[in-house]
């Protein structure tokens, strides 16, 4: 505790004045993956942060504000993790370009904070020394300092700092330890400006080098690289003392179970089951609550406002539409909570490790497991996460099948169908049929994804299987603040979506359903006639012949059309079509009841369990999400792939839905 406590409480670094500094300062946080970069970023900026995209690319960057001193506000950028300046993936390339000032739209940061994991100094210092050699203002933040101390690793911070030629500040991000010291170090680094190149330079002198490998012979770069490691080893040996030689014992002991030959796969399946069961049962309470609030709001509005077109728009359009989607916020939150916990704890990497061999059989990469698992929450972050896959063809194959993973937007559709037609049935006495069916839908998506990826990898995207190499980070207790930050950001995105896209579509659908108004001679208050004659009704009628073989009538057709913008709007559209959100009592006002009561012209019921199943299958396979299409467009930088994706997924969905409905009818009555 000696050297550390001194610096943590430290007054050794003189407080510099920052009058003459360019304001506002821009500070980038860079470092190896899993080194507490995001924790540090969060403790620097607190809640004053936002998720944005780097100019021109879809890499999410987090920007925040750090009030370094009373009159000094600093812009902080959280860069994607990178192991070296020789980028091998898109993520790393972007981080490197920002760090070296090669990003034309983003100015080079004034100061770079390099996070260096104190428990893994040697490998972390590789990137740090590369960055120090560039000569730009830099501070090393020694993260995981408490963990290093706990594993009896003593680090002489002064010595390390002297050897590296930049200030080294130990931080314990969780407890905000060392943050003030870090602030002082950043200010003095900014003031000092460019440093001289250190005398231990191992990089190629040319600043414009693109890649070491292509520039130099194999012997030369191996020599340089090994020399750098030797130097780092020497520095670390001189500035640390350790009582134990091995530290990652706990992780290894956990791994004994988690990646065990037999237990490992069992645990993986159990974890996934737990996630789905939780989302389906625990989420019910808050969902009902939200549902009641919106019903009450609609009824209250109708009671207090004069009847008329504006009230109709508010109640049937806005409240029914947006409320119908907001209900699913708890489920989406829980799903993201699990994904974040798995990611932050280090389990995701183990899952990729377990799955790699299996994934390879289908032409995929083990690293595709994480993006695909994230796609269960939402394909958009999932597709973004494919950036860690180095091979472009593998990345493209993963992007193409990511939308088959049942995302949280499909969950409402499944939930509604199951609530309406399969509820309260138990299999084997204790497993709910609903949960089982949801699992079945997820498995259907996965199965089709596997087949499609196999086909793609043997035709369009044929390539030898690329190498698989990934770090298995030590298990760590997820930092609750980080989890909260991630969830908050996701809720924000969802609410924004509900407030803009879904609200707009709800209003549009309401208009299309309400106009042209039925003439006075016809029963104006007869909702059914009104819908039938509306624009939406006409459109539904046009596509009805196409979708009749799938078991859908024209009202479902209307919902289908609207769902191509975003899946969850199918619910708001059905609410509008069936005019739910009315004040005629709690029971009949529910969408479920309206669906159960819906009749065709000949008096038969529209919705049978088979129709519901057919619709669910359609939703598993069809690409009904504008955001996904937009992200694929941006990630592949062409319209070819997104258009291909929409069309082949639509064909698959139609065929599968057709087989479900017609097959089901052959097997027995609806």
């Amino acid at each position, binding site marked *: 505790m000696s050297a550390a406590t001194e610096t943590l409480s430290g007054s050794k670094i003189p407080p510099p004045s920052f009058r003459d500094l360019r304001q506002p300062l821009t500070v980038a946080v860079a470092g190896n993956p899993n080194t507490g970069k995001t924790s540090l970023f969060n403790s620097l900026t607190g809640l004053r942060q936002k998720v944005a995209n780097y100019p021109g690319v879809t890499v999410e960057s987090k920007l925040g504000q750090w009030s370094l001193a009373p009159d000094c506000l600093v812009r902080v950028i959280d860069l994607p993790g990178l192991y070296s300046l020789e980028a091998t993936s898109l993520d790393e390339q972007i981080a490197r370009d920002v760090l070296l000032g090669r990003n034309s739209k983003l100015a080079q940061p004034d100061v770079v904070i390099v996070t260096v994991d104190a428990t893994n100094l040697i490998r972390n210092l590789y990137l740090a020394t590369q960055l120090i050699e560039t000569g730009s203002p830099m501070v090393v933040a020694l993260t995981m300092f408490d963990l290093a101390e706990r594993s009896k690793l003593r680090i002489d911070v002064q010595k390390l700092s002297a050897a590296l030629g930049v200030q080294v500040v130990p931080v314990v991000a969780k407890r905000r330890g060392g943050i003030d010291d870090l602030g002082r170090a950043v200010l003095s680094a900014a003031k000092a400006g460019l440093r001289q190149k250190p005398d231990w330079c191992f990089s190629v002198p040319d600043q414009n080098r693109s890649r070491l490998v292509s520039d130099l012979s194999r012997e030369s770069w191996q020599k340089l690289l090994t020399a750098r490691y030797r130097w780092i*080893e020497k520095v670390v*040996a001189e500035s640390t003392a350790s009582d134990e030689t091995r530290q990652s014992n706990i992780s290894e002991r956990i791994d004994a179970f988690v990646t065990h030959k037999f237990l*490992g796969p069992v645990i993986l399946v159990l974890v996934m089951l737990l996630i789905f069961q939780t989302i389906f049962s625990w989420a019910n309470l808050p969902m009902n609550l939200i549902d009641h609030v919106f019903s009450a709001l609609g009824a209250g509005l109708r009671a207090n406002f004069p009847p008329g077109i504006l009230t109709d728009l508010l109640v049937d359009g806005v409240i029914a539409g947006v409320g119908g989607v907001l209900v699913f916020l708890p489920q989406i939150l829980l799903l993201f909570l699990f994904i974040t916990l798995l990611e932050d704890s280090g389990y995701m990497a183990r899952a990729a490790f377990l799955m790699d061999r299996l994934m390879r059989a289908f032409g995929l990469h083990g690293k595709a497991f994480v993006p695909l698992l994230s796609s269960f929450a939402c394909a958009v972050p999932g597709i973004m996460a494919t950036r860690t896959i180095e091979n472009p063809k593998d990345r493209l194959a993963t992007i193409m099948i990511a939308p088959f993973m049942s995302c949280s937007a499909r969950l409402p559709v499944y939930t509604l169908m199951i609530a309406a037609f399969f509820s309260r049935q138990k299999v084997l006495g204790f497993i709910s049929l609903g949960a089982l069916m949801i699992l079945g839908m997820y498995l259907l998506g996965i199965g089709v994804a596997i087949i499609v990826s196999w086909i793609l990898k043997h035709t369009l995207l044929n390539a030898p299987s690329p190498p698989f190499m990934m770090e298995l980070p030590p298990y760590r207790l997820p930092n609750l603040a980080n989890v909260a930050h991630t969830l908050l950001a996701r809720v924000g995105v969802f609410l924004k979506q509900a407030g803009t896209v879904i609200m707009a579509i709800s209003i549009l659908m309401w208009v299309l359903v309400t106009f042209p108004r039925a003439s006075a001679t016809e029963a104006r208050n007869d909702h059914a006639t009104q819908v039938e004659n509306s624009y939406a009704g006409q459109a539904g009628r046009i596509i009805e012949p196409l979708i009749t073989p799938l078991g859908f009538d024209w009202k479902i057709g209307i919902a289908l059309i609207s769902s191509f913008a975003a899946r969850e709007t199918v619910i708001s559209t059905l609410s509008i079509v069936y005019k739910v959100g009315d004040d005629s009592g709690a029971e009949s006002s529910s969408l479920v009841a309206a669906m159960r009561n819906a009749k065709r012209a000949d008096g038969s019921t529209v919705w049978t369990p088979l129709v519901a199943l057919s619709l669910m299958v359609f939703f598993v396979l069809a690409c009904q999400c504008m955001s996904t299409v937009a992200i694929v467009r941006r990630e592949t930088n062409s319209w070819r792939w997104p258009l291909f994706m929409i069309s082949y997924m639509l064909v698959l969905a139609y065929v599968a839905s057709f087989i479900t409905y017609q097959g089901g009818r052959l097997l027995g009555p609806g």
Partner: protein
Amino acid sequence: MFTRGPVVAEYPSGDIESRFHFRGEIFVTLDTTPIGTAVRIVSIEGSDSLTLRLMEMGMVPGAPARVIKSAPLGDPIQICLGNYHLALRRNEARTITVTISD
């Protein structure tokens, strides 16, 4: 931490056999290294970006390593390199020559 490993400037060129003796030391490739054995890296074949990346992540001559286990389906394998863990497919592990240290 890392101490200098055995200096092996040359070894029979051509195909790397899975196990051979040279100057009294036992050399194996990482994919055939028995689980749990402490080894030191000798060299990595290949000049692609993976080789570079592996070396950048510390797989440099002399670095201590240990094969922890293989995944349930036999591939990939988990390696402890220095003091962190790495997953690697057997195909790539085959390009890494190590010497069994005691």
